[in-house]
Structure formats: structure tokens, C-alpha cells
């Protein structure tokens, strides 16, 4: 490794080591961050204490209003260290309501984008159906907001973005990941549980990152940016995407393209993840312009 690269590595300010609150502040322009419905408002989960789970004062979701590159923005960050960043009634509603308020501001003529920091395993099982419903409602709010301003999903690790929340990432205008991050609907353990170790050996870390990791997702066009775990670089990547604005067509709307890619795959074999990168792009239809 060159001296400069080594120096960069040593001097980097790890974004992954920051908690949700610190991450949210780091992405907003200096001095503009204001937390809404924060710890001292004590809006907690009503469902956890009865199950002997200690609630957190912000239910593991931080809503931070401010500016990014001078433009109005809201950052909503899930705290991966609290209940695996899972979606409960309150954490879900904080995210959804924040996006709805951003949408209303857009309609009032104040362009406001949203950045959602997803470190989450999906639904919080202690709240099951309210967690699942919260994800569905969040997805609806993403669809509404992204017509006006970008909804940017950032997954940096260590938890990654799994379960129903991977669909929120799928609907985002842009997805930003680090190499350490992972994105997928089902984690390796649940696949091994359902369909055996042959299908997915959940102890094979190399395989996990080769399939779900940021580098693979970026290489297969499923993430828009791959960033170093260095806070200023992460913030810069987000700024760039906010300024880029709404994409001409969202990834989740490019149905013809992706359907064709699936049809072209040989489903009778498992694919080597590196080889998959070229399989995936082989014989692409002309880019959809809907």
C-alpha cells in the first residue's frame, strides 16, 4: 500500500463507528442539524416493556432536519445497535411521517430531499404486524416523495439492510453503500434455515459479502455509489446525489430491463458471484425510457 493510501486509511474518520445520531449530523451542513422527536420527548415503543425488553427513548430512530449542500433535507437514521435497527410502530412512524412532511414541503414549493440510513434487519418481531405495516406505509411515502425530490438510502454497516426494509432501499432514488455493508431481502441464516446449507452456508463470510456486499451490489448496478468508510467522503457522496436530483426513471420502475435480465439467467445452476456480474449484463435490452 502506498504511503498516501496508508495515511488516508489511518487518518480516516470511520462513519461505521458513529451511532445513528452522529451519522445523521455528519451528513447535514455544519450547524443546520436539528433533531425532531428526540430522546427527551420520550416517544417510546408501547410494546417492549411488557416483554421485558428495555425501550429506548427515541425507539432507535433519529429524525434530523437540516440542509444538505444548502438545500432543505431530512435525514432519518435507524440505530442498528438497538434491537438490530428493527422497524417497530414508533421507529417506523418517525421515518414515514418525516418523509410525508418532506413531501408536503415539496408541494408547498420547498424542495426537500430525504436521506434514510438503513441499518436494519427488517420488522421488529416484538411488534410484528405493526412493524410490517410500518414498512408498507414507509414504502408508500417513498413513492410519493421521490416524485418531487430524491430519497437516498445509505447503508454503511455493520448491520446492513435486510428483510422488508430492503424493499425500501429498492424503491429509493439512489442507494449508497460501503464495502462493509450488505443489502438483501433474506439473510444467510434464514436461507440456510429454509432451504439448507447447500443453498446457503451462513458461516461462509466470503460468500455472504460476495452476494450481499456493497461491492457486488455496486458492480451489478443495484447500488449507485460505493464509498469508503470515511465520514467526509460519505457526506460528499450524499451531497452529490442530492444535487443530482430525481433520476429520470427509478430503478424499481425499470421492469422490462430487469425482467429480461432474470429471463436470461440459467436458473438450473448456482452462479459464481463474480461471473454473475457479466451474466447479469449480458444481452441487455435497450434502456427503458418510461
Amino acid at each position, binding site marked *: 500500500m502506498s504511503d498516501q493510501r496508508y495515511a488516508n486509511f489511518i487518518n480516516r474518520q470511520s462513519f461505521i463507528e458513529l451511532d445513528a445520531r452522529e451519522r445523521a449530523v455528519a451528513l447535514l451542513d455544519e450547524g443546520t442539524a436539528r433533531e425532531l422527536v428526540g430522546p427527551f420527548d420520550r416517544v417510546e415503543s408501547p410494546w417492549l416493556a411488557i416483554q421485558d425488553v428495555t425501550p429506548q427513548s427515541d425507539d432507535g430512530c433519529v429524525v434530523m432536519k437540516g440542509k444538505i449542500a444548502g438545500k432543505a433535507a431530512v435525514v432519518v437514521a435507524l440505530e442498528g445497535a438497538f434491537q438490530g435497527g428493527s422497524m417497530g410502530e414508533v421507529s417506523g412512524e418517525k421515518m414515514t411521517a418525516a418523509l410525508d412532511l418532506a413531501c408536503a414541503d415539496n408541494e408547498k414549493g420547498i424542495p426537500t430531499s430525504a436521506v434514510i440510513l438503513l441499518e436494519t434487519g427488517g420488522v421488529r418481531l416484538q411488534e410484528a*404486524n405493526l412493524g410490517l405495516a410500518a414498512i408498507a406505509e414507509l414504502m408508500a411515502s417513498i413513492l410519493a416523495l421521490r416524485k418531487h425530490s430524491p430519497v437516498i438510502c445509505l447503508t454503511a454497516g455493520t448491520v446492513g439492510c435486510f428483510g422488508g426494509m430492503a424493499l425500501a432501499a429498492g424503491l429509493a432514488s439512489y442507494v449508497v453503500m460501503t464495502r462493509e455493508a450488505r443489502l438483501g431481502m*433474506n439473510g444467510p441464516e434464514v436461507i440456510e434455515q429454509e432451504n439448507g446449507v447447500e443453498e446457503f452456508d451462513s458461516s461462509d463470510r466470503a460468500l455472504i459479502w460476495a452476494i450481499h456486499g456493497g461491492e457486488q451490489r455496486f458492480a451489478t448496478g443495484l447500488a449507485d455509489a460505493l464509498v469508503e468508510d470515511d465520514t467526509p467522503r460519505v457526506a460528499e457522496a450524499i451531497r452529490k446525489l442530492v444535487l443530482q436530483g430525481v433520476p429520470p426513471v427509478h430503478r424499481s420502475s425499470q421492469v422490462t430491463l430487469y425482467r429480461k435480465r432474470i429471463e436470461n439467467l440459467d436458473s438450473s445452476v448456482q452462479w459464481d458471484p463474480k461471473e454473475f456480474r457479466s451474466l447479469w449484463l449480458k444481452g441487455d435490452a435497450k434502456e427503458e425510457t418510461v
Partner: protein
Amino acid sequence: MSDFTGVRGTVWFRALAGQASPMPGDPKSVLTADAPLGNDQARFLCVVPDPHARFPCARHGEVGLEEGYALATRVREIIELDKNTTKRPIVAIVDVKSQAYGRREETAAIFLAASAAADAYGSARLAGHPVITLVVGQAFSGAFLTHGYQANRILAFDDDGVIIHAMHKEAAARVTLRSVQELEKLAREIAPMSYDIRDYAKLGLLHKLLHVDNPENPTQQEIHAVKGELVSAIEDARNSPVDLRNRLESKGALEMRKASLRVRSLLAEQWLAEQ
């Protein structure tokens, strides 16, 4: 394992749409048909088991890669067709036990296939199509997020075989380090954790619970009544906003989602104070 027979989808699709086939070029696991419903021509969609599906992990009624994109295609087709005319209703008939769990699925981004279908349903709703979901059997987790949960109105049968939930009991018990019995006890006391559709109905997310004696073998009378309920739901959706606010304005929400309502009002208060 919760009993999933995988027949209810086909039974109700045939009952409501008059046939049970996929459209040309679609996988056999996705049924699509246009059929009269009240004064409209409605598009009906359903995911059913296909033991010969191309992907081995999607052969027992799971919602996988092909299913997600086929649903997205057939819903988008309607959005395009009705672009400059009356927005016809879209009816999702739901009996899905899970998403597909496979290495191929994860590699080829099943999360995006699922998002694509949800995008299509949600976009149809935002464009003014009444999107109605009828849960005739199971509606679990990622599968339900993909097919059904973006609807304006959700109806379900009040039957033990109808379950809306985030995770099957055995898996949920394992993940939360409890026994199934402990989980069932908690589920009886905590409505959002319950596997009983009547408890789900208390949460205010369902438009209506319908009664059918045997969902796997409905009478003509029952089918006629269900059609009437779908027509009412369509009318109700047409006279309401296109977003999902009805889920928080229901009687159930006022009772069971007080924390959600508190979040919403406090956040709005603090957000507007900023401006």
C-alpha cells in the same frame, strides 16, 4: 408450520375472474385476468404455486424473482392502458406463505423484484386506480409487501386459515429465542403479535372482515356477496385520497396505534416550528 395448502388463490381467482390462467409469456405462478366487477372491468392478479417454476426455491407458492417482475409488468400495463381514461380497479387476491428464500434469489436481487411489484401497485394507486386486496389465505412478510400491501383497501376472511404476519411461528420463536408456546402466549396478549386475523383486524389496517363458511369451497351466494364487498371497497377508495392515511384514521388506529398518532402530531408540530 402454519398450514398452507396453496389452493385458495386459484379458487378465488376463478370465482371472481371466471378463469385461472397466466397471461402469455408469464410464469404459471402469476394469474392475471380482466373481468367485470360491478360497473368496471377490473384487473385481477394472484400468485399461486407452480411446482415446475424455473427457480427451485419458488415452487411452492413463494413470491420470487419471476413473480415480482410479472406482477409489476401486468400492473404497469394497466397504468399505461388507462393513462387517459377511467382508472380501472386492480384486485390483488392474496394467499402467499412467504417470499422465495434462495441464493439465486439473493444474487439476482429479489429485493428489487419485490420493490418493482410494490412500485407498480403503489404507482397505480397514486395514479387513481382503486387497488383492492383480498386476503383469502396467508399473507406473510416480504410476499405481502410485494403483492397486496400497497392497496387502498384490504379485505380478509375471518377464518383460521387467513393469517397476516411478519414471520411464521416456528421461525419467529427461534429468532426471538422463545418456545412456540411462549410466543403463542405473548401473541394472545399483544395484538400486533397475534396470528389470529380477528386480532389483526383490531389494528385498523383492514377495511373489512368478511365471512365465508369454507374459503376453499365457496358457494355462489358467498362469491356474489364478496363481489359486492369488493365493489363497495372500490367505491370507497374512489371517494378517498390516494395515499394510505385511511390506515391511521380508522377506529382501530385510534385505539391501537396511539403511539403512531402521537409521533405524527408531535413531528408535524416540531417540523413546522422550524420554518
